[in-house]
């Protein structure tokens, strides 16, 4: 009886509609629809709109007309835009290198057998879980030109006489915002790499030790290659987060002093929202895309290469 019923069910759907619904591809597509709609509405559409806006002279609330590459021509001649490109690259490269080096170092330390290991691992996450704006406001006070706790401490210790001009001097300001970004970004790198480290089988290390490999050799030839796919992913994300950073700068300096910390994201906002020129703001945002694509391509085609991972050259 049961067999017959099953056979019925298999044989029955002879109509094309039913078979379409039954086909694996169609079912799969239907399941994907919500995600596809989500992506189209919330990712593709805003991105497309942003790109389109960059080719218009739209202002807030006023529809623009197509002006082709005029926004980009104007930006090309705008020294402030180029300063922001320089600042963004400096900020991203320096902060990413520091985050990677310090994060990896921290991950290696936490991978060892330490007392209170779980406690340290939990504490490490703090900078990451505190909302960026809150930590930025904390840094704003730490870097205050009159009330900085660092300046105060150093003055009390008799090391300096006048408060450090953290955010007022161009070089200091750049260093200060990079330091704040590094502080905030390290946990992400460290925890992810720590997870990666724990997947490396101890037997590899044991074998290498038996063969007389030094600590450095084990790191160079076992840890690093095993970790590199993860490093590629982590650093891609880290670079993307850093490149598009906005909140930290906006709270700390708004791009000052003298535009020394104006990133492309903050300049884009300044021109688009308070300045009302959505078209130009969008063009600045779009100008970030090539840099971001380059970072992603480098990571995927470079860092994930087997040869590189295995320590070889091209």
């Amino acid at each position, binding site marked *: 009886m049961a067999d017959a019923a099953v056979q019925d069910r298999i044989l029955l759907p002879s109509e094309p509609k039913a078979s379409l619904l039954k086909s694996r591809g169609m079912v799969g597509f239907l399941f994907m629809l919500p995600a596809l709609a989500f992506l189209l509405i919330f990712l593709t559409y805003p991105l497309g709109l942003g790109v389109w806006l960059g080719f218009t002279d739209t202002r807030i609330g006023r529809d623009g007309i197509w002006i082709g590459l005029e926004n980009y021509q104007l930006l090309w001649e705008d020294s402030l835009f180029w300063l922001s490109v320089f600042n963004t690259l400096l900020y991203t490269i320096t902060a990413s290198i520091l985050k990677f080096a310090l994060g990896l170092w921290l991950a290696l330390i936490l991978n060892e057998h330490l007392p209170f290991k779980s406690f340290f691992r939990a504490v490490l996450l703090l900078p990451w879980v505190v909302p960026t704006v809150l930590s930025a406001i904390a840094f704003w006070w730490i870097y205050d*030109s009159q009330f900085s706790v660092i300046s105060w401490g150093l003055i009390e210790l008799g090391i300096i006489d006048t408060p450090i001009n953290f955010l*007022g001097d161009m070089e200091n*300001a750049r260093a200060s915002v990079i330091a704040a970004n590094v502080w905030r970004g390290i946990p992400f790198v460290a925890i992810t790499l720590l997870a990666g480290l724990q997947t490396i089988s101890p037997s590899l290390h044991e074998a290498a030790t038996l063969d007389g490999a030094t600590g450095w050799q084990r790191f160079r030839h076992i840890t690093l290659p095993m970790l590199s796919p993860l490093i590629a992913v982590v650093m891609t994300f880290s670079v993307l987060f850093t490149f598009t950073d906005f909140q930290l700068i906006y709270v700390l300096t708004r791009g000052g*002093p*003298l535009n020394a910390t104006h990133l492309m994201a903050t300049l884009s906002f300044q021109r688009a929202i308070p300045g009302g020129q959505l078209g130009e703001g969008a063009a600045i945002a779009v100008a970030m895309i090539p840099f971001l694509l380059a970072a992603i391509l480098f990571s995927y085609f470079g860092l994930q290469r087997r040869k590189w991972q295995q320590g070889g050259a091209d």
Partner: protein
Amino acid sequence: MTLSRRDLLIGTATAAVGGASAPLLGSLPAFAQAAEPQYKPEQGASLRVLRWAPFVKGDEDQWIANTQKFTQATGVDVRIDKESWEDIRPKAAVAANVGSGPDIMLVWFDDPHQYPEKLLPVTDLANYLGNKYGGWYDGLQGYAKRGDQFVALPLAAIGNGIIYRDSMLKAAGFQEMPKDTAGFLELAKALKAKAKPMGFALGKAVGDGNNFAHWVVWSHGGKMVDENGKVVINSPETIKALQYARELYQQFIPGTEAWLDINNNRAFLAGDVGLTANGVSLYYSAKTDPKLAEMAADMRSANMPIGPIGRPMELHQTTSSVIFQHTKFPQAAKAYLKFMYEQPQMSEWIKASSAYCCQPLKAYADNPVWTSDPLHAPYAKASETLVPNGYAGPLGYASAATMADYVMVDMVAEAASGQRSPEEAAKRAETRANRYYRL
């Protein structure tokens, strides 16, 4: 004069019959100069007002109280929403252009000139109020008037003034505040040498940074554009202004390039600077804090010194009220603004704003708030010394964008801090301003 619903009805009926003539009946006086316009709120009218979040509580309380009086008199419900003051500009632009949202908004600076065709002209009301109350101040009127038409009603200047510590001024060897820029520089040197230095925001401070930068340049005769909107910032006058800024800056407390709007308040209240410029709110921060009673008693205020051009020219913040074309109840909206600007309401509102909001109409200059505390006196002159941000050219998209991009502030900060020579800074500002004014 209180407006009852009955007055409104009668008045509008008259206007409907015989044009805008003097009312037939009632207690309303007739005016020789301009007939009093009468507005009859539409049947079932209700209004939405969007304003900036208040800086002093008294302002908001009184605004709401006045609005309630309006509702009682006319039966028109008014909902008041508020937004942080920096969000007003984009919100207003969107409301204007999308054609929905609030009926009335309190906007900033040259906002009315961004979308004048989306605003309900209020020329009749403005002329009536101007005639009745001694006229509008020129600077504020510049923000509200386009050609012959008022597209907004100026509401208030948020005054900027110097606040200093009397004891420090005396310690520096000065008996009173110097009135001109040359004397001010001497004071700056003496303050740094003998007391606490002065400090003005040179960072991306929307309010304080712009106030200082525009004052330095204007007081020396520099200006961003001429009457035709041609960029003329790169001028000998501007160079002089920047040289002055450089000299003055060397007497500042270090770190002012990083100052945002709040930093000067903090530094002053901590006793680290002896002089700065701010709204009157700085005084109230000290006055309302029992721990700072001594400092509050030592605080004095003054107007920004007068430069080589021989007359005061300052930016201040300006707010105007606009009615959007899209409102379904234009009569009710006009009736509301008329009511709010009439003496019983406006006087109380200015008083309650504790010297933060300076009157738009000259007749209100004798408001008791200005004499209630000697610290208020300089703030009473805000409307008088105010010059629109796009001086001396037309207001509009370019003037707004130039200010939002901090062209003036950056130029002054670059030259003052020595990052660029005055000539280079002026040249760069010229290039940057031309990006907006070429359109």
